[in-house]
Every structure is written in C-alpha cells, then in structure tokens.
C-alpha cells in the first residue's frame, strides 16, 4: 500500500501533526485548564474562612503615678499607656515593619528585630518601619480603662482623666 495523497514521505520523516484538529486541540486545552482550575480551587481549602478571634478588648488599671513620658505596659500585652497634661492615650507596640513587639525607652520605642525607632506618639524616627505605630481606642476615666486592640484612633486622640 502506498500513500495516495500528498508528496511521498520517507519512513524517517516525522509524522505530521494535524495542527487544525479543532476538536483535539480543544480537548487538550480543556483538560489543561480544568486541571489548572482544580489546583486554584484546591487553594480554597487552606485559605481559612473562620479565624479564631479572641476578644481584643481588655481592662487596664493604670498605676497611681505615671510620670509624663513614662510608659505603662500591662503585663503580657502589646500596648503602651502614656499620661500627660492633656490626658491618657494608648499606643500599639507591634512594629509596623515586621510585627516584632517594640520596647519603650526614654525617647520612645525601639524594635529589637530590625532597629526601627519611634517617638512617644508612635511617629517613625529611624529604621525600616513604613508607618507610625497606631493609637488604640480607649474608654474610661481616672485609672480604669478599657482598650480595644481592634480599633485605632487618629494620632493625638487623648482621653481626659
């Protein structure tokens, strides 16, 4: 038997692949995109929808005497309280760079991980932090306050007490 149509081919020539086999190509691309979509769909599982959300509000009792510029950090919490003549305010001590807990010092705050420095009001003084430390919403009076780590207030919002 010989090939009737087209030029004579040698046995060693590559077999021609039909490039305009629409159904074949369609099936190929359909299976490829189905698998790709399946992989994307599988990412839906590890992307958690329900997150553990312990209460972000807690009570704080400030010490009787808190000098101007002196920070009070409730034990085990990432928030620093300051009291001055205008009132009381709370600054988050979670570094806006990569999330380390900054430590209050005489000038403000310093970060142990990558060396960011902040002033008492949270403004970046030095280092890689991209944003100032946020001020947290507090309510209360005298020495009793409730702080909400979930909501921030504009810098300069102080509570009279």
């Amino acid at each position, binding site marked *: 038997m010989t090939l009737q149509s087209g030029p004579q081919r040698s046995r*060693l020539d590559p077999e021609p692949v039909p490039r305009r086999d629409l159904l074949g190509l369609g099936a190929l691309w359909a299976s490829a995109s189905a698998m790709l979509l399946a992989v994307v769909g599988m*990412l839906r599982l*590890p*992307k*958690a929808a329900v*997150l*553990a*959300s312990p209460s972000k509000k807690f009570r704080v009792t400030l010490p009787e005497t808190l000098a101007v510029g002196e920070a009070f950090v409730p*034990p*085990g*919490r*990432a928030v620093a309280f300051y009291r001055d003549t205008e009132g009381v305010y709370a600054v988050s001590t979670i570094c806006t*760079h*990569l*999330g*380390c*807990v900054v*430590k209050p010092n005489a000038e403000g705050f*310093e*970060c*142990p*991980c*990558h*060396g960011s420095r902040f002033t008492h009001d949270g*403004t*970046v*003084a*030095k*280092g*890689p932090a*991209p*944003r100032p430390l946020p001020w947290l919403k507090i309510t209360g009076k005298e020495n009793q306050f409730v702080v909400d780590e979930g909501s921030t207030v504009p810098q300069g919002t102080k509570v009279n007490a």
Partner: protein
Amino acid sequence: MTAMEQFVANLRAAPSRIVETAFRSGKPETDRTRSTFVFGNVFLHLHSVRTHRWSLRWTTTMGLGIASLAAFLITLVTGVLLMFYYKPFTEVAYDSIKDIHFVVPTGRFIRNIHRWAANVMVVCVILHMARAFYTGAYRKPREFNWLIGMGLLVVTLGLSFTGYLLPWDQLAYWAITIGANIAQSPREVTDALNITEYFDPGGFQRLLLLGSDMVGPEALIRFYLLHVMILPLVLGGLMAVHFWRIRKDGGLVKPADADQRAGTTEETVYPVFTDAPNRTYHLAAIVKGRTSQVGRGPENTVPSMPHLFYAELGVLMLTTLVCVLLGLISDAPLKELANPAVPENPAKAPWYFLGLQELVAFSAFMGGIGIPSIVLIGLGLIPYLDREKAGTGEWFGGPGGWSLVKQAMIVGFLSSLAIEAFVIHYGWLREWFPNIPQLFITALNPGTMITAVYGAYSVWLVRKYASARAGAMGLFTCFLCGFLVLTVIGTYFRGPNWVFYWSPSEWPKH
C-alpha cells in the same frame, strides 16, 4: 541422585543462590556484568554504565552535588526518627523537643545530626551552584537543569526555614512572625498606593501561611506539614528530574579537549569494552546526539561500577562523618518557650537568612521579596543570555576568567562594604527626611543600591569584553560577595535592637 539428595543439595546451595540471584546477572566482575549491574538496578540505573574519566577528576565537581544529596538523605533518616516523638501542637511542641533532647535515648544526638546535616546541605547546595556556574555547566544543553537547580535551592532554604520553626521556642516564634510579615510585605507597596482594600496579595499570602490572622496552632501545623510532607515531596520530584537531566544532557560538563587532557588510563582499567556487548538496542533513530556516547566509542570511559560508585560512596561517608562529628561537638539550640509578648533581643534568623535580615532592616518588601526575586530572575536568565561556547567545562571559562573573577570580587566586596559603612555611619532617608513617602525608601534603599551597583557593573563588563559570559561572571561573583558581606555583618556585627557593634562584648547589659 534421589529426590531427597537433590533437596538437600538445593538447600545447601540456597545461600549462595540468593546472593547470585540478587545480582541478576552475576557479580560485577567483567565489563559486561558491570554494565548489567548498573542498568539492571533500579537505584543505580540513573547513572550511565560507563563514566568519562574527566567526570571522575576531583576538580570537576569536588563531589558537591553528591554531598548535597548525602546531606539530604541524612536529614531524611534523622528527620523520620525525630517524628517518632515530635508533637506539632503549640502546647506540647516545646516539651516534646525537650524530651527528645533530654530523655529520648540518642534523641539529642539524632537532633544534632539533623540540624547539622541541614546546615551542611545549605552550604553544599550553594557551593554546588557556584561550581556549576564557574565551570559553565549551565550552558546548552544544560540550561533547563540550571533552572531545576534553582528550584532545589529555594526548596532547600524553605525546608531549613520551616524546620527552624518547629521547636516553638523564642527563635521559632519570632522567626514565624517575621516570616509571615515578610509574606505580607507587598502591603508596603499596596498601602502606599492606597489599593490594599481592593488588591491585597500580601494579606492573602500571610493568611495562607498562618491559617489565621495571628501566629498560633494553625501556623505550627502548617509549617509542620510543609516541612515533613509538601517540601520533601517537591524536593524529591525536582531531584529526580535534576539527576535524570544530567544523564540526558550528556553527563557532566567537559571541556572540548577532555579526551586528550584526561591522560592515559592506568593499566588495570580497560578504557574500552573488552567483551563484545551481548545486546544491541535499535533506538538510534530517536537519539539526536545529546547522549554522550553517540558517534563515539567508549574510549576514555571507565565502568561506573566500581569507579564512580566508590567515589560517590566515599563522598556519602565523608558527609556523614562531618555531620556526626559536628553533632557530637555542638548541640542544636533550644531557647526559652515562645513568648508572644517579648521578642528575643537581638532576634536573629538562621545564619543563611541573616543577609536577608540585613536587607529587610532597610525595607521589608524590597529585602524580603523584591531583591530575592530580582536575584532569582537574574540567575535564571543567565543560561539564556550567555549562549557562548568558548570555555565550557573550564573553571572560570579558561584563561583570563580567574582575573575577571578577582576583579569582580573586589567590586562586590568594596561596594557592599562601602554602602553598609555609609548607612551604619550616616543613617538613611528616614532619619534625614522624617516625612518622606515610604515608596521612596522602598525603591531607594541600601539593598537596592547594592543591587543596582552590581547590575551596572555587569552591564559595563558585557560592553567592555563584548561578552555576556563576562557580565554573568561579574554578576554572579558580586552577588556571592554581597551575600557573604551581609551575612557576616548580620551574624557578627549586629547586636541588640539591630545596632552595629564591633563585638558582642560591647553589647549593653540590662
């Protein structure tokens, strides 16, 4: 012979028959049985049956690839052993590591070996990459295997990082925190552009990594899963392709005149087949000339069994010895239990990430994602930009190469040291202009400056020598030098609050 006598004779011959049948084609004593020993064995047949004598020279590879594999096998075995006792839950993870360290028989020793083998693996993989680069082994037809190798480097670092987190001590907790926030750092850009609300790849990556909006039990189990299952599987798959491609791309890279330079064979080694092969495979039609032996006799090759396998076994034994000795000398660290309220000060990543930590101390996004991506893309493009042929298989591409590398080392060391010294002494944009927009610092910081200097230098080399190879060599050498400088500064010269100190004796006491 009666049936009973036959039975007894068979029984007595059984031990030697078991040995004979294990080898399938007899003991590997002649050229022919040595060949069948290789291709008849599922584990050995990734090798060709004969190996070119150039490939066996010490200076060809220094055994670095096999040493990386050996270190991986050691971590695999010791890691499975550690899994007998390790519990990936935040309440008990730390205690289980303490049990392994203090209570489990040989637990401390096995954990030390695991930790050291992981370090040895990182070192060997980096050195292996440098060897492949400087001998031009990434060139045609090995371009794609260079990319596979880069994938292996990334997975190796990922395995090390995820392993670092499992003890749930202070180092682990703060490394996860920093790592997750680096994953989130695209926000540094999206925040500055005010589009985070609509497009937040950073938040998505962090959520995927931690499985929660904070570092807790979900994060630990994810890192555990990555460390013991996902990444080893990926590594195994990539390794299979990597080794297979070495073979299919024509074996190890050789200079064009390797046959002459390999010298004459010893008298005990038969450089050609002494027995006629007893089978011929008619596959010639699909072989296109990349297989090393096409169109050539087996001259200057020796049987892989024993010459190659004994060399590989030697490297495996040496690597094991090094890991065991290091494990005897030095204990794997275990800090205090994780404390979410107080970071370590200084909080340092494992040594191979301290260069990155130095970079993220300039900008989280650029140091953690931007510059590493630029470096990876640059490395990946090298085989496709340098398509020259001269000097393939020669260390540093032959005469003149070494002096180019020396020059690039001077540029690489001096420019990174100068920029670091300037920043340490004078500070950077944020200190001079406190209100400068963050995007300026993201784009223009010491890390990007060093990268830009290296890039400019290599472009200058391409133009000066009219050779992409010269530019690639300059760039690769510079990046190695920069990696070294940043790692050493991060390891030895950064103290509490990431402040520069000449020595830990100057660290403030508190």
